[in-house]
């Protein structure tokens, strides 16, 4: 199969959606810039025109509200926030409006908008250019939240998000933009709410989100060399998340590590740990371990960054601790 990078896969999904569905348009900051979105939107304005690829004023709130309004009025907008930190200025249209729209009007109208944002951190960018806030949005009924970790999923989940009919928060990660894998040339959907088992194993389950799925893949290979047979589940969607895949794996292995490169408190990992403890407690042979960021803003200076962010060793040591090694 032909291979693409993660960024190329995102771009291809956009291009194919724009080509096949006249309701689709893209709006947000940096769309005409050569660097805001990496190569993930490169040249789309030239191919589809600046009427449909709209590089917007610096107005996160109103631009997102406009995308929500356009969606309710029958379009399929993708509103883009090149950094998740800045998207917090648009919490009202996302949380109060889009997420509630179907429910509060008895299902007669909905807001089929895709809110795409990027986790963009490291490189001494510090606290306001670094945040991974999936947990906040995972909390909200009416929203769906997806976090692809591979080029295949990056394309398939974007297409699924645009066709979903509900507001979907699509979170990609700049640390993944160079990842490469086979990506089909046609339009295809990766189902929202379905995890992917990246490696089968019997000793321990590792559930990972987004960039941590890539880190965990390395950890699993290292563990294999040490004789540990780990099962790796890439969650792909954090809302709804695939309980069935996680529970059946835990029933098999009895041990669970959840890796999510976001804050520890009230995070994705906390939700999964609590659910597993509540629903498959009998299968557990050890406490659930969380591999998350410390509860602190992202630092700037390189040595502090190295201490703050997570790596292969963090997963390996969590696994070994649970296995009593």
């Amino acid at each position, binding site marked *: 199969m032909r291979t693409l990078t993660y960024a190329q896969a995102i771009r291809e999904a956009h291009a194919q959606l724009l080509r096949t569905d006249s309701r689709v348009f893209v709006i947000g900051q940096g769309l005409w810039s050569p660097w805001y979105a990496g190569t993930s939107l490169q040249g789309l304005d030239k191919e589809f025109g600046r009427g449909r690829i709209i590089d917007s004023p610096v107005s996160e709130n109103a631009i997102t509200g406009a995308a929500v309004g356009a969606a309710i*009025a029958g379009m399929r907008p993708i509103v883009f926030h090149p950094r998740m930190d800045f998207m917090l200025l648009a919490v009202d249209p996302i949380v109060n409006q889009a997420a509630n729209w179907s429910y509060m009007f008895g299902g007669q*109208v909905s807001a089929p908008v895709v809110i795409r944002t990027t986790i963009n951190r490291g490189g001494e960018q510090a606290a306001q250019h670094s945040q991974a806030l999936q947990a906040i949005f995972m909390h909200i*009924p009416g929203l769906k939240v997806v976090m692809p970790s591979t080029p295949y999923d990056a394309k398939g989940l974007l297409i699924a998000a645009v066709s979903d009919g*509900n507001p979907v928060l699509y979170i990609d990660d700049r640390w993944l933009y160079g990842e490469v894998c086979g990506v089909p040339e046609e339009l295809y959907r990766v189902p929202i709410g379905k995890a992917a088992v990246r490696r089968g194993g019997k000793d321990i389950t590792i559930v990972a989100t987004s960039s941590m799925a890539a880190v965990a893949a390395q950890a699993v290979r290292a563990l294999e060399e040490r004789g540990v047979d780990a099962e790796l589940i890439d969650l792909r969607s954090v809302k709804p998340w695939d309980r069935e895949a996680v529970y059946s794996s835990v029933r098999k292995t009895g041990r669970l590590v959840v890796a999510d490169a976001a804050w520890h408190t009230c995070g994705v990992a906390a939700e999964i740990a609590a659910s597993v403890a509540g629903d498959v407690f009998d299968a557990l042979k050890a406490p659930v371990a969380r591999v998350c960021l410390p509860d602190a803003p992202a630092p700037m200076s390189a040595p502090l960054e190295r201490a703050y962010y997570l790596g292969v060793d963090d997963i390996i040591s969590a696994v070994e601790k649970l296995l009593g090694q």
Partner: protein
Amino acid sequence: MERDVPIDLLHGMYVSMLRIRLFEERAAELVDAGEIKTPCHLYIGQEAIAVGVCAALERDDYVWGGHRSHGHYLAKGGDLRAMMAELHGKATGCSKGRGGSMHLVAPEVGILGTVPLVAATIPMAVGAALATQLRRDARVSVSFFGDGATEEGHFHESLNIASVYRLPVLFVCENNLYSSHMQLLERRACDNIDRAGEAHGLPGVRVDGNDVVAVYRAAVVAVERARRGEGPALLECRTYRWRGHVGASWDMDVGVKRRDEFKDWLSKDPIARAGQQLRALGAEELELDRVVHHVRREVDEAVTFARESPYPAVSGLLEHVYWTDGERR
């Protein structure tokens, strides 16, 4: 001035205002009686704005509103019975008992939602206008909001965006001089909402919001301009809220306003004024009485319908959290 408006049009606007007034007076009684419990923000006194603007619109045009939107819903053609049922929390309500007074919808007449988060639907109206521009259909999108909403940042963001892209939006500020309990100049350095238009490169017009003909005329100019692709406009309609911020009480009871100020505005009652204009055009007293009687009966029937309608089934508590195919009208 009123001679320029055909009597049929003026009569239609009079009836439309009366439907809002009598609906809300009845709702106020039912709020007082404890029969309606959903928080109701009454529109009494402001009817000329919704009616004057909506008379300039087509059925397909979009209307977006806020917490005080009973008037917008009725003026645009929303079903009166379904709104009364919604206020009663019934399954037959316009939002199936999920929304109440502050969340009204009537997609069949272009009302895609009214919500109480202040100014929230202003950018959404801009987005609906962007949708019509991209589709090249002829719809105009109207955003109704209060003076308080102009203190939100996204009001200004929205005017700028609509102006940059020359979108077919009509921003209608209903300046009733109060945001909740706060008088205009307690919250603003200047009484100059209409000037926001100029600041953002679009026409801003101040209109007597208690004169339905004046509102209608201003709306026609703005709507025609928008349909020609010449972009958005801002109408600041000056009016007065007769009742409290929320609920049935008169503001005087809670000490928010001065009695003489209110007395002054009572004399500018938009419905009485339209009635006078109709009489001047030759309408019969008997005919005007008949309209009141007819609307009263319509409201009575709506109350009966609401009372007799079932509550939503508890088994449906979690329905509609996510939209599924087949639900959309």
